[in-house]
């Protein structure tokens, strides 16, 4: 076999797959057609575009730089691929006080505003797709989700309920400083000595803002709603 034929064969065997699963899907996915809400059924008019508030870009960068994706996923799989949807607060809420069961699988718009979807590789910790909503409704964190997250990031095992958590502490995202005239409103409830307090640094603030923006509570249009129709 000549070098030319050999290289041609290699190019063909690799190139077909390369075009079919990388290049074409990549450029197709760049321009996803917007999904409209059917006007009659829904109160929200227009197209499906879940808005996220908070410092999503910066927070996603902090999330990536500190390797949160090594242990946490952000993917609620459909039931054919896993049991994530059955958990009561992973893909929405099983018992939302206003709307009933809002659980749904991850869709392509859930990562709006991010450059790279942190799907994750291993679940040493729980899935975070719906973390913001979960914290707003569960005991212990519903009063102030941000404060709960700051305390968790500082040292997860300070929380007696999570004494055996394997999440690493991130004290380096916080600053230890002298108390000025009054304690900072977001200072952590940890005792670090007379006249000293622990406050979240800029990275911790961005990260917490990002984590709170992880919610799955936007009503989805019928075209994206795969819940079995039962009444």
């Amino acid at each position, binding site marked *: 076999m000549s070098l030319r034929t050999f290289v041609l064969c290699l190019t063909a065997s690799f190139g077909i797959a390369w075009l079919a699963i990388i290049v074409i899907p990549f450029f197709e996915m760049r321009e996803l057609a917007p999904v409209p809400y059917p006007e009659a059924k829904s109160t929200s008019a227009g197209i499906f575009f879940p808005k996220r508030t908070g410092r999503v870009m910066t927070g996603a960068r902090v999330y990536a730089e500190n390797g949160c994706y090594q242990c946490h996923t952000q993917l*609620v799989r459909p039931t054919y691929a*896993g049991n994530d949807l059955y958990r009561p607060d992973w893909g929405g809420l099983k018992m939302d006080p206003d709307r009933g069961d809002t659980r749904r699988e991850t869709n392509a718009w859930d990562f709006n505003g991010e450059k790279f979807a942190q799907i994750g590789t291993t679940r040493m910790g729980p899935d975070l797709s719906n973390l913001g909503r979960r914290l707003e409704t569960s005991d212990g964190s519903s009063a102030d989700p941000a404060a709960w997250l700051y305390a968790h990031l500082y040292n997860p095992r300070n929380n007696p309920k999570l004494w055996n958590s*394997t999440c690493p*502490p991130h004290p380096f995202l916080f600053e230890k400083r002298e108390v000025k005239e009054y304690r900072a409103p977001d200072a952590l409830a940890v005792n670090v000595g007379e006249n000293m307090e622990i406050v979240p640094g800029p990275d911790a603030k961005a990260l917490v803002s990002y984590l709170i923006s992880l919610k799955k509570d936007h009503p989805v249009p019928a075209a994206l709603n795969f819940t079995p129709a039962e009444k």
Partner: protein
Amino acid sequence: MSSATTNTQDALVRSGIDRSLRHPVMFFLMSGAVWLSFALLLGVIASVKTSSPGFLGHCGFLTYGRVYPAHINALVYGWGMQTAFAVILWLMARLTRRECTMTGAILTAGHVWNLTIGLGLIGILSGFGTGMPWMEFPPFAWPVLLASYCVILVGPFIQFRVRPEERGNIAQWYLLAAVIWFPWIYLTANVLLHCVPGHPVMGAAINAWFRSALIFLFFTPVALGTASYLAPKVTGNPLYSDSLAKLGFWSLAIIGPWAGMQKLTGAPIPYFLPYLGGAATALFFIPALAAAVNTIRTIWPSREVLTVSPTLRFTLAGMVALVLLGVAAVILNLPDSMLPATQFSFSGYGFEILALYGFFGFVMFGATYFIVPRVTCREWISRRLIRWHFLFSLYGILTIIFVTLIGGYQQGLGQESWSLPWMKAVDAGVSIAVVITFAWCLILFSNIFFFLHLTLMWLRLGRRGSQPTLLACSPGNLGPAASGPATAH
């Protein structure tokens, strides 16, 4: 008389080739060994942290989320790629019978490669990682790495005038293919993820494909090419079957590029992508089995050489790991039963480590024990160091395979039991992590011996002598060459 002259000329050609490659080959092997020790140390630290999260947790640069990516990137680019460079350069020069004339350029590019890896790891540890698995180096690194790669391998390939020969040289095919595929894969993934804005979920899918392609289309062909060169050389038997070798090669070329996206099953990407990925990964057992059977059947008639030749012993262990890899590829990717349970458990990590260290690594160690005496004109100093390297590595990797593949399934079942509290699944993961820490310690221990031994050889403190270092005394009548330059080929 004429045959004796040919033999002498032949030996002169070979020793000329070895001399021309001494510095690049030893440079890449040594750098690889240094990065391997470093990567294993980081691996042990990361692994301890998964069971005791407070360990060294108070400074940012040693947090788990940075140490773990540093560990895997040092392993892949620091050790894996550089060891592959050394072995590919030497094999290609030998196979084409040409001396290398570009050592200056290769060594310069090698230094640039090492410097970039160092800076990239500092970047990851100080918090500038990109957050894409296996591509965590800050974005400055990839163009530099790609350019150095071209100088290190593509240049010499043109100089060697590598041609895929029709018969008997499947090694050349594999190495040529790996050298062509790597830049294509690396360039595609980096350009699409760093330079062209795209959909975030498709980015994650391309990243999953990249990891799989690096294993199946770079590390696998390099190891298979090396094994199909070493097994006939050391035993003196011809390769068992040419057609089996071709089947192995072309099935890998056709199946390999489709694999990888099963890692995103259930994610919002076109549905056919994860299915194709799962099917292709499961089909990987065809090239794996074809190549492994071919090499093992080549070795088998001379199996008594296994008791003395370190090269052959490592190669055979690598081939057994390849069979395990093929079986694991099928079992882990059954879409209805196993994939949901193992998609986010430790078994994915176990699969990668089995491919990188169990299969690729063992074949590369075998090649190192074969090549180094030839390029340094010295023999390995101690058979005990070689034996310890083999045994501790073997026990370490067996432990990792066992707990990650079987324990990973248990952990995955815990994750899938949605009616039980989440902490149950975490607890299953923690007990696996403790065993993995122990196994990494064994592997680190074994590679301290390897590193010391290789350093002594690099300093040319090896044994001068005409007898190769064999694993047992009285070699008797053992095929044409068990190891060492003393025996001609």
